[in-house]
């Protein structure tokens, strides 16, 4: 979602050529580009001004750290400022004091309050709390029914507001009921309202005075534009918000509103909504978001997603088979199934470092449907064929083509991918964050994506490589590991991995020599 922004910032950094010190002069262009990028990302113009000033102040006069160039130094400064502005460390919900604790959701119309109430209730219930959902939207048609439906979907009771027509009364009675029935957390869904609607803003103030909520969460749509500072600012002024929820993050909005809302209220962003389904709700991590802004990709979220969705045992089995070179088409089909489970390739790719460019080139829809028909082809094969692809004669292929409704050419294509995947596995080496990531990709059958991240040369990660720095270098070079970067990291040139494919070796060696030659030139 922050892909395009990161691309712009990267481009801006390229224009920096000065060496030695960052000066007012040599960052001027970059700052301009950053400003435009942030504005295009919907960060409010006043917030942008403030941000640029902060970056400038932090940057100008700084010595350039050894091993970095001015652009890289500025990336780091921008990243740090972004993390800082987005909220530093993660903040838990406040459950201090005696229960029942009250959490109130407020915001503009259609932001996602009711849905988020359900999502939050689900999480809290899973954490062992006993929430009660309280419907206080007595205005919008079928709003109460919506909350009741959502509540039953997540298995959390909803206070029965039948016959009560004032939010204040509903909350009063819900509080009583919670005490009587041992519910320890009230989640209050309020009607969407405009911040300039005094009557309805007063209603919220009244509710607040009545129940003194520990948390008043402002729910904001990630697609919001410049107005975010007005609405969030006004809600904050009236209610003294305690936190923010950013919804619809599954979209491709760059989400600059996050910065705007955060900076105008000073409240931490506590959760993000990543889909319409009630389990699509995640904690917000400023550092992840910042690295996303800067094109590092949301690697941590990705790893988590892969871990959650992929059957680890199955994946491990597949991986071992691959390593032992026993990987069959049957196994290939299984790993395709795993990829399918990861869900939408589009959003997956959005999380990956350096993928913004690749993403533009890959037709994700096509890829997704490809998964399906590749599996269909394999299921049209006999057990023998699946066990040993070598026996696939052209006659057999024709039969399979007929059976699966695809062409022989497409079957060959699938077989090629199968072979590639076998190869990729041998490149999944070494533990550590990156190695682990690649392993996970490999296990999940995402070898091709891993390959696009480390194109051409998939070097082994030697012990002690600064992975954070590696990620930084990767993102600066669109995911490619350049010889220069490898040198900086103290990595040898590309080498074939221990169990690498023999045929590939000479080619790789050539590359290695070429890289060395290049380095040599540079030294001189």
């Amino acid at each position, binding site marked *: 979602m922050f892909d395009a922004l990161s691309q712009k910032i990267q481009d801006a950094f390229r224009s920096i050529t000065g060496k030695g010190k960052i000066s007012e002069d040599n960052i001027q262009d970059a700052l301009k580009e950053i400003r*435009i990028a942030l*504005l*295009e*990302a*919907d960060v*409010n*113009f006043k917030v942008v001004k403030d941000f640029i000033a902060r970056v400038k102040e932090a940057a100008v006069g700084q010595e350039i750290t050894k091993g970095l160039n001015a652009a890289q130094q500025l990336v780091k400064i921008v990243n740090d400022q972004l993390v800082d502005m987005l909220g530093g460390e993660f903040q838990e919900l406040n459950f201090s004091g005696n229960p029942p604790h009250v959490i109130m959701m407020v915001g*503009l*119309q*259609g*932001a*996602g309050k*009711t849905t988020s109430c359900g999502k939050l209730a689900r999480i809290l219930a899973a954490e062992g709390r006993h929430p009660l959902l309280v419907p206080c939207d*007595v*205005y*919008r*048609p*079928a*709003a*109460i*029914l*919506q*909350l*009741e*439906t*959502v509540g039953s*979907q997540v298995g959390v009771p909803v206070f029965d*507001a*039948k016959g009560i*027509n004032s939010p204040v009364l509903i909350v009063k009675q819900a509080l009583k009921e919670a005490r009587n029935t041992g519910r320890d957390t009230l989640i209050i869904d309020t009607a969407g309202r*405009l*911040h*300039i609607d005094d*009557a309805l803003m007063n209603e919220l103030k009244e509710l607040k005075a009545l129940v003194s909520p520990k948390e008043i969460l402002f729910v904001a*749509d990630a*697609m*919001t*534009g*410049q*107005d*975010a500072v*007005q*609405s969030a600012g*006004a809600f904050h002024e009236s209610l003294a918000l305690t936190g923010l929820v950013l919804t*619809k993050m*599954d*979209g*491709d*909005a*760059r989400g*600059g*509103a996050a910065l705007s809302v955060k900076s105008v209220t000073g409240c931490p962003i506590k959760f993000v909504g990543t889909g*319409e389904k009630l389990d699509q709700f995640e904690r917000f991590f400023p550092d992840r978001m910042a690295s996303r802004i800067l094109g590092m990709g949301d690697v941590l979220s990705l790893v988590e997603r892969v871990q959650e969705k992929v059957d680890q045992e199955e994946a491990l089995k597949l991986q071992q088979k691959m390593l032992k070179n026993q990987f069959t088409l049957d196994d290939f089909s299984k790993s395709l199934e795993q990829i399918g489970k990861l869900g*939408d390739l*589009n959003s997956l790719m959005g999380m990956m470092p350096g993928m913004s460019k690749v993403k533009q080139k890959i037709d*994700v*829809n096509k890829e*997704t449907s490809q998964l399906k028909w590749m599996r269909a082809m394999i299921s049209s094969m006999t057990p023998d064929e699946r066990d040993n692809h070598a026996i696939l004669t052209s006659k057999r292929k024709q039969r399979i083509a007929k059976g699966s409704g695809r062409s022989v050419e497409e079957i060959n294509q699938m077989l090629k991918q199968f072979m590639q995947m076998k190869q990729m596995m041998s490149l999944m080496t070494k533990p550590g964050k990156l190695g682990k990531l690649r392993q996970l990709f490999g296990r999940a059958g995402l070898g091709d994506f891993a390959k696009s991240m480390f194109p051409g040369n998939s070097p082994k990660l030697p012990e002690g490589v600064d992975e954070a720095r590696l990620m930084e270098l990767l993102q600066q070079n669109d995911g490619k590991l350049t010889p220069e970067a490898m040198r900086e990291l103290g990595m040898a040139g590309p080498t074939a991995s221990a169990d690498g494919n023999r045929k590939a070796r000479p080619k790789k060696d050539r590359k290695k020599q070429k890289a060395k030659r290049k380095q040599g030139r540079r030294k001189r």
Partner: protein
Amino acid sequence: MFEKAKSLFRRKEGERESETTQQPKTFFTQLKQGLRKTRDQLSQRLQSVMGGRAIDDEVLEELEELLIGADLGVATTMQLMEQIRVQAKKAKIQDGGSLREILHDQISAILKQNPQMPWEVDQHPAVILIAGVNGVGKTTTIGKLAHRFTSSGKKVVLCAADTFRAAATEQLEIWAERAGVIVVTKDDSKDPASVVFDAMQRAKSEQADVVLVDTAGRLHNNPNLMNELAKIRRVTEREVAGAPHHVVLIIDAVTGQNGLHQAKQFVDKIGVSDLIITKLDGTAKGGVAVAISNELQLPIQFIGVGEKIDDLIPFNADEFVDALLD
């Protein structure tokens, strides 16, 4: 369940209704009303931007911020600023105030490239597909449109094709009741296309003038849901000659630059014919609509200015721009 929701609503309707002011509902008063709180502050700023000041870099920068702040986007803003500079120079304009007029003309000229036509609903039935991302106001706008059409003597059928969101059908049922129109629903159906099929048959047998199809909110970057929408479109095509007669994309005025991505995707997948901008009663200016209308050559037909049934008014470019630059 539905009965309960309805009764709850009926009780409250009166209350919210009473909050409305007695002002006549013109486009401009509606918009101005929304702006009352920020207006002082804004006009102060504008005073300093425009009022009798010589045109210098500072004036131009403030003007640029005004446009950016209205969500016009960097590209459109730069383009407009460039034009202004050129024109101001050519006409030897000295006063900041005149800049506003030039700007006004420029923006409304963009919007007038695609004038809204009176909606043709002479076909029997005319099928109008309503689409957009989540929570922008599709269902509410359908209620308002239904009311408009019945007020001009048309027979309207609503189609509850949001089979996903909790209580979406019941929400539309309440709007159907308010507008006094037929609504076609399908209990427990998870297949929107089949509800659309039913609605097309019903509209034909009832000899309705207009069918308004309410679709589930969906993000434009979700291929599966976009395909589902394309399928809905195909069902209308197959069942009613010439359908869909209008495909309306709803854009929320608070939307930032993502609005353009949304519009492009919806145009690409289901061939949008018209825009409606909702929630212009807030402080958001809806400037992204200018870029959308310009880039995709789409007319803005109506604007939503509140949550009540008659809070939908035909779009007027000049007044929209007035509010934008207010």
